[in-house]
């Protein structure tokens, strides 16, 4: 039998490894976040002045230029910006004059709420639908299930939102249109956003469930007399969740940004809408802050996803044994 001893060739610790790449990642993000603004057209000082409704004489523009220290070399500005950012100082919004961190912070909760609610909505329907359509492929149930889900997410977001608002807000008057206040206000925006994700999750799940169900261990599970629910939930679904999880990690950024339309439509006081307004108003500190903010969120979520992933797939955690 194999012999075993204490670790002699200890690989670099998992966490140190993660930490280092995390820092590199953050550095990259900050670079891009800063550099991004150089690509956007429009002259900053003028934009600032315009946005506050002032016709700018040249001296004023120049003064502001100096005030913003825009004449320094790029790397100095970057360094200054970075060191401030590290102290959680992302500057002052050109438009509102309030600290960017404060502005973003006050909208974060709303966005998180909406994102989670829509995710919950999507999962609530997509998990059972994905599983069911995979369990009975090529049947009417499958076809109808798929088409229903697909129709929902084939309809462009803003059209669907308007339709829902019209039907449930104006005609039936069941739900408020402005997605604000209590939980009722969350339903329409979350449903609109969730519908968009529904198809993606359902179909991914259907695909990977089909794959999972063709695995040998499913047959073994049946032979062992496992309860069908347990077999589907614990074995097949768990196996099938991997691609869905990857997709979630990847789309979380899109999710945060993709809520812009819905936030605008339902007058939801979230980050995405604020960001787009800031882009239109050339509110650079806010845009940079937002970019940094959402990048952080995405990275964090992805770390969590990675951890979940390694729970679902032991080979990744244990590093497998094989090399190409």
């Amino acid at each position, binding site marked *: 039998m194999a012999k*075993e001893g204490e670790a002699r060739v200890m690989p670099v610790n998992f966490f140190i490894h993660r930490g280092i790449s995390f820092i590199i990642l953050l550095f990259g993000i900050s670079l891009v976040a800063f550099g991004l603004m150089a690509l956007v057209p429009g002259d900053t000082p003028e934009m600032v002045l315009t946005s506050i409704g002032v016709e700018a004489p040249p001296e004023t523009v120049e003064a502001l230029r100096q005030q913003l220290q825009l004449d320094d070399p790029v790397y100095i500005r970057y360094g200054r910006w970075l060191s401030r950012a590290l102290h959680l100082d992302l500057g002052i919004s050109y438009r509102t004059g309030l600290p960017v961190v404060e502005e973003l912070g006050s909208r974060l909760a709303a966005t998180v709420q909406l994102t989670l609610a829509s995710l919950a909505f999507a999962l609530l329907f997509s998990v059972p639908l994905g599983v069911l359509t995979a369990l009975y492929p090529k049947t009417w149930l499958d076809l109808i299930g798929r088409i229903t889900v697909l129709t929902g997410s084939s309809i462009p977001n803003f059209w669907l939102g308007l339709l829902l608002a019209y039907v449930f807000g104006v005609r039936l008057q069941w739900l408020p249109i402005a997605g604000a206040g209590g939980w009722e206000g969350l339903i329409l925006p979350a449903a609109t956003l969730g519908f968009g994700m529904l198809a993606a999750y359902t179909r991914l799940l259907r695909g990977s469930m089909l794959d999972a169900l063709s695995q040998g261990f499913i047959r073994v599970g049946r032979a062992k007399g496992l309860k069908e629910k347990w077999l589907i939930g614990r074995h097949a679904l768990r196996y099938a969740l991997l691609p869905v999880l990857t997709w979630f990690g990847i789309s979380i950024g899109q999710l945060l940004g993709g809520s812009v339309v819905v936030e605008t439509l339902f007058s939801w006081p979230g980050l995405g809408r604020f960001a787009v307004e800031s882009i239109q108003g050339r509110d650079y500190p806010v845009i940079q802050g937002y970019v940094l903010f959402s990048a952080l969120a995405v990275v964090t979520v992805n770390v969590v996803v990675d951890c979940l992933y390694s729970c679902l797939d032991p080979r990744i955690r244990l590093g497998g044994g094989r090399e190409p």
Partner: protein
Amino acid sequence: MKVSNLKKYYTVRDCFFAKRKILTAVDNVSLAVGRRETLGIVGESGCGKSTLARCLVSLEKTTSGQIQFDGVELTTAGREELRQLRRNLQIVFQDPYAALNPLRTVGESIIEPLLNYHPGDSRELEEKAEQLLTVVGLKPEYKNRYPHQFSGGQLQRVNIARALALKPALVVCDEAVSNLDSIVKTQIVDLLLRLQDEFNMSYIFITHDLHVVRRIADRVAVMLGGKIVEVLPAGELAAAIHPYTRYLLSATLSGDPCKRRQRQKGTQPAGPAGRYGTAMSGCALQHRCPELCEQCRVEEPLLKTIGSIHQVACHLNG
């Protein structure tokens, strides 16, 4: 092929936060296979045979040691160099199902090695695939089927067909015939022997079946706990001296319903097999060796040559 001091470690973890442990799957194995020779490898289940096999064909990175094939060092060979070597170095995997791409027909799988080295007319290749299938006792029209449509033994033969397609100089067969009925098994063994004669092929033949080993192998290496504990000519198996080999030989079933073994009720048969956890010094067999001595507990026995080819690692019988 010459292998010296080959080692392969795996790191394992009991739970997510536990420290990693090192598991030695192959430990300090040295062996050599000459042209037109067959080396049989037998040994306990889980002793590292498959790992050794994978290392031998360089599909797994070795932890240390050298493998020389045709004068080339495999462990340091470049990608393309290795690929060229593989023309003469094939393997039959232990698990026939997993080794076949479920999305491709077996025909495609079989001609894959041919395609890699002798790309040619598709018609020709197809014929070749049919021919190979026939050789291993399958119907040629099976070439259009997918792996999941085959039985275990059929798949095993597909794997053999694939490995033989190139007529390589050395084939590593990891329990290549274990799922076959005795008639087919005999046929396949005959086939292998015939090919050996014809093309001067060599085999490393991993199996549990001592009958097969006797028939096909020139020499037999016995593995235990990642190490080779005895090497001897296949014909002289009966003259084995390592306690484990002797034990293996004695455990052979009679094959006659009238001469059934008397089951020793209640007795714990030959102790727990090896250890999997704590480090161990001394002989791998120490917990179940009937002739244990003090030295066996503390010192690891080394492989000693006692006959012209006979080698053994045992303190008592060396």
